[in-house]
């Protein structure tokens, strides 16, 4: 087991990551995927369905363990960590934005954002304070007391973005974040990602939508579980 740590030059670094689902049937979802994401990047990972992008997202987010290879977050090898340690990594270094938003019903927008800090050991008052600030940054400072079902789809996704950023993670993983949004809200959300990126947030955007990927400075295309191309603008 290689627990050697590297210098935190990269926010995220993958070395020959493979993932095999034992099946049956046995599925080789990823084969020798290597890539590195520098701090402050806005990276698009593009692939059609079945290309392995969801598996890659899960591995990058430490929600799934690769079959082989190593992965470094801020220079620290996370392969071989215990489930508990990985939870710790997620609570502090990774932010998630999902296609379905996954806001908790019954919690206000502000509370949903504060939930991003729930497992970080920060006291409740400070969580709310930071959530309020973050909600302001995504332009929803005035909507904090509203419940998710009182918000539009675009607003809900902004709340989810705020939740993903509130703990100041090393990078944000956005999985088809515009998949449930209309074109207007899609444009607006992509603008938000660009702004946040300009302010220093590392964003990894996983999508099948080439239009959405346009705003990324760098695009990695996945095909059949392999990196097909890696292009910088």
């Amino acid at each position, binding site marked *: 087991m290689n627990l050697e*740590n590297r*210098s935190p030059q990269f926010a995220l670094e993958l070395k020959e990551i493979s993932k095999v689902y034992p099946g049956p049937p046995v599925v080789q979802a990823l084969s020798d995927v290597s890539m590195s994401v520098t701090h402050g990047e806005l990276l698009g990972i593009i692939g059609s369905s079945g290309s392995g992008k969801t598996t890659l997202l899960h591995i990058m987010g430490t929600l799934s363990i690769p079959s082989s290879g190593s992965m470094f977050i801020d220079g620290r090898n996370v392969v071989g960590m215990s489930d508990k340690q990985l939870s710790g990594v997620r609570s502090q270094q990774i932010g998630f934005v999902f296609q379905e938003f*996954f806001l908790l019903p019954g919690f206000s927008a502000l509370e949903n954002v504060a939930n991003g800090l729930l497992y970080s050991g920060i006291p409740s008052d400070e969580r709310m304070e930071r959530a309020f600030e973050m909600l302001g940054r995504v332009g929803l400072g005035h909507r904090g007391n509203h419940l998710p079902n009182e918000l539009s789809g675009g607003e809900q996704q902004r709340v989810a973005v705020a939740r993903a950023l509130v703990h100041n993670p090393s990078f944000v993983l956005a999985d088809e974040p515009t998949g449930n949004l209309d074109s207007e809200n899609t444009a607006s959300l992509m603008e938000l990602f660009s702004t946040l990126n300009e302010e220093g947030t590392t964003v990894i955007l996983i999508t099948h939508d080439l239009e959405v990927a346009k705003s990324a400075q760098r695009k990695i295309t996945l095909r059949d579980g392999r990196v097909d191309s890696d292009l910088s603008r």
Partner: protein
Amino acid sequence: MNDSTGNKFTDLHSKMGLRDTFSVGSSGLRTRRVRAALSVVGITIGIAALVGILGLSQSGSADLLKDLDALGTNLLTVQAGDGFRSQQASLSSDATAMIDRIGPVYEVSATTKIAGGVFLNDLIQDGRTKGITIVAADLNLLRAQRGSLKSGKFLDEMTSQFPFVVLGSVAAERLGIRNTSGKQKIWLKKKWFMVIGIMEPLPLAADLDRSAIVGYPAAGKFLEFEEPPEIIYVRAYPEHIHDVRSVMPATVNPENPEEVQVGRASDVLEARIAASDTFLNLFVGLGAVALLVGTIGIANVMVIAVIERRNEIGLRRALGATKFHIASQFLTESLLLSVLGGITGVVVGISVTAIYAISRDWSIVIPVYVIAGGILSSILIGGIAGFYPAMRAANMSPTEALRTK
């Protein structure tokens, strides 16, 4: 190994305080109030039943014990038993005097049943006696029984000589006589007797509740009756009651002491307390079954909650929740549910006990162990019911939990 960066990571732990655990655990209930309320009904009924049953039985026993205390356990009944001789044994006519000579005895009162019917008037057919018996009694009967009168007065030196009668509580009720103010006469063994008193129930001699009591002299004069005592009630000082009991047969019938039956009147009450304990066990068993059903109900609701909230579990794992945090959340939810049900059950149980006890004029007794037991068992139930769903939630793979289809 170069660990220049290691320090930055050593505190990469997910943390959640107790207050947050409680708040997260209760969130599932806050957002699904109706379901939460319905799912605790089983526990509420079970705990309410147990608290109510234990409370009622304690209140009831307390009442019986209070009765027992008031009535005393030092009343002996002496009567003729079956002897070895073929003819029916009976007490001798001087048995009362002989018993009175036993040192620790301070009250002796004889009674004898008289064959004959008791009717409200002389028009009623002979057969319809309403189960009331005529009893000749000594004047201190009421004192020996520690009984009291509902109305009128008991027989005295004068009234025991004449056709006057005192009715037991049940006898008065069956005859429809409520008080003694109306100079009510009754047709007793084909003679008119005037009712001068009605007794309150006598718990130590329920037979007397169904009797019409006349004086021995009046029985002799008007009912052509001359029989020796049949049952003698004896009060002795409590500390000597066993001694008195053991010398009683030989005192009453020195020749054939085996023909004398001595009993303790309060044994009946004690048997009633014991009998109520038997019922208690039965009902506690039923309450336990209700609790078991309630437990399964909560476990069921929790399993459904885990399935329904798969995405929430996935999200929380993504936000950094450990398996332990997820398990704690659902276990807390289950505990809150059952404790909520338990507390409601205790309140309902106490209310039922109080209402019933008040309606029966009992003193309200709810032992602390019943309340504590109710709450504790609901905690235990929450733990048991929540364990499997919590484990299931905790062991759900995050990627599986995040799937939307």
